[in-house]
């Protein structure tokens, strides 16, 4: 019973947290970044930077961790074969690597730069401008990676025909 329950709960949690993570990534790229440009132009950007962005980033970075941990639990004994791209595991392995790179980007690049942009860490105007550029490029990089990520996550272990197995 427990042997069946753990993967079922891990898959459920992986989907829930993954939807929140990638959903917020799409929110940032498709909604907030263009809206912030318009809001800066008419002097209403503070509403976004003070009240919306910090909350969105909170759920964004922690849902990334939960997604990765639930994914690792779901892989279970297949964790090493997936990450070493062993025969039959390349599809899900590529998906797992893409998710891992995206998680690294969130915590090592996007979040530290967003802290400077939002005034949570001291930064000069020059440093803030540089942080804006780096955070934008890292966010867009993750948006790009999310396309193959979802392709391989959706088909990695189930749609074997798509991977020539």
């Amino acid at each position: 019973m427990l042997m069946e329950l753990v993967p079922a709960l891990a898959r459920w949690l992986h989907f829930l947290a993954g939807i929140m993570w990638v959903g917020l990534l799409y929110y940032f790229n498709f909604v907030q970044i263009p809206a912030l440009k318009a809001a800066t132009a008419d002097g209403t950007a503070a509403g976004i930077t003070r009240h919306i962005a910090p909350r969105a980033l909170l759920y964004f970075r922690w849902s990334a961790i939960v997604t990765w941990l639930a994914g690792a639990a779901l892989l279970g004994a297949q964790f090493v074969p997936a990450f070493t791209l062993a025969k039959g595991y390349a599809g899900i392995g590529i998906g797992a690597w893409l998710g891992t790179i995206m998680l690294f980007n969130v915590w090592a690049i996007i979040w530290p730069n967003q802290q400077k942009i939002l005034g949570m860490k001291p930064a000069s105007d020059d440093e803030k401008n540089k942080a804006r550029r780096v955070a934008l490029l890292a966010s867009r990089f993750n948006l790009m990676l999310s396309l193959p990520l979802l392709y391989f996550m959706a088909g990695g272990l189930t749609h074997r025909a798509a991977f020539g197995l």
Partner: protein
Amino acid sequence: MVCKGATMNPFDSLWGTIVAGVILTAVLAVAVRSFLN
């Protein structure tokens, strides 16, 4: 748009990023199908 002497970065545009993602998906899918499995 003509861009003289400058390299276009696909990440500067939302749709450039999406196109890059679609191309990357195709490349990885072919790689997995042909070489890795």
